[in-house]
């Protein structure tokens, strides 16, 4: 029950505000009206949810692979690490979503820019998180590698990577939270499909219930992704 509180509490607050009549329904529709829309407009909502979900998952997978590869490459090649490392740290401070219009300009209205936006949001936390983890191996453990004459690759696989797994776990949790945001922002900038597109379209047509239904689905999707990731990571002791 206490685990549901973070979901139930905002829901109650939402219901209370809309019941009080202080806010007109075209600004904040009642939760029950949105719930009804989730069913009546399921035919519109579900296909768009699938679009956003597949963009999110594709971006996550690609961003993850690229992030892992970048972190491993920088650890195996200290020169590359010295060259690209500071940029990686600095990139954390950049609001990469300002690139969304540029990506749309370059890649068109298809799924490309949405996936690219998600990749950008996933890549940096994964790459810099894993790299920090790979650099944080206790020196005494590395003594063992050095005295055994271990190659950088074996040191990475047997010692550095296992010690970096908690760092990677933390980075993955962040990445999974960011990923749907990347897809939705991409859809806001220019799309003909997806929940982000649906939100803007519903807003323009004054279908506020539908806009909120899409919003609820985005939040639910993000929470479920998070929950699933957390389960898997816990099982892997990350």
């Amino acid at each position, binding site marked *: 029950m206490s685990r549901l509180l973070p979901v139930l509490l905002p829901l109650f607050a939402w219901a209370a505000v809309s019941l009080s009549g202080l806010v007109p329904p075209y600004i904040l529709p009642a939760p029950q009206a949105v719930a009804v829309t989730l069913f009546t407009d399921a035919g519109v909502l579900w296909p768009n949810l699938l679009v956003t979900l597949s963009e999110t998952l594709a971006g996550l997978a690609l961003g993850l692979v690229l992030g892992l590869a970048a972190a491993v490459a920088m650890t195996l090649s200290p020169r590359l690490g010295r060259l690209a490392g500071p940029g990686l740290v600095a990139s954390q401070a950049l609001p990469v979503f300002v690139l969304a219009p540029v990506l749309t300009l370059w890649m068109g209205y298809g799924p490309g820019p949405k996936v690219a936006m998600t990749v950008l949001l996933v890549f940096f936390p994964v790459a810099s998180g894993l790299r920090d983890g790979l650099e944080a191996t206790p020196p*005494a*453990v590395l*003594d*063992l*590698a*050095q*005295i*055994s*004459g*271990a*190659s950088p690759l*074996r*040191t990475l696989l*047997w*010692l550095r990577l*296992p010690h970096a*797994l908690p760092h990677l776990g933390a980075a993955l949790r962040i990445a999974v939270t960011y990923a749907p945001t990347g897809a939705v922002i991409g859809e806001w900038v220019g799309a003909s499909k997806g929940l982000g597109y649906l939100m803007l379209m519903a807003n323009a047509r004054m279908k506020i219930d539908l806009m909120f239904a899409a919003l609820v689905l985005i939040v639910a999707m993000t929470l479920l992704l998070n929950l699933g990731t957390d389960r898997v990571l816990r099982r892997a*002791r990350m």
Partner: protein
Amino acid sequence: MSEARLQGRVLLEGQELVRDLDLALPPGWTCLLGPSGAGKSTLLRLLAGLPSGARLEGRRIVPSRIGWLAQQDLLQDRLSLAANVQLAARLRGARPDPARAEAMLTAVGLAGRGRERPEVLSGGQRQRVALARVLFDAAPLVLLDEPFSALDPATRAGMQALAHAQLQGRRVMMVTHDPAEALRLGDRVLLLRDRRLQDLPPLPPPHPRAPDDPELALSAARLLAHLAEAA
């Protein structure tokens, strides 16, 4: 050749840490005593070829394989005990040999526990697995950096005897700050003080001496008094 020798002088940030060094390790146990900060561990790390911050001006002759047992057991939590035993060899690029790993675990008194994880072990048992890791790699030179100092006295005495029995015939050098430990195990006892290595008289064989050996107790007490006087 499995000769092990360190000659020359050791410099730390331009300052001389050890001078007129000529340390040749014969088969058997060489125990190195000395006050904190004298450079005992630095010397051991130089011999091991590990980063130490210090620089050797001279010669270092060591076999290609060196066993390493530090105060930390360096067991990897995500690996089974059998995998931990094989870790140093695997890092070197050796093929896995689970049967031999089990044999090494048996040798240190942990028979049949290869599938367990380090987290279920006590501190003493963990250090036994670390010893099994050294045994598995079969290095002719074994370097020990205060490997037993974190153990309780009874466990420590048991570990000393076990390590001595299992490392029979190899060249072993152990850094310790416990005079009793040095005398109990050492065929040779060295003291690093005032930038020089000096030989202290070891106890005559057999080693290891029993923990309740009166000669050991008396000599250790005398050596402690001697060290305290000089400190």
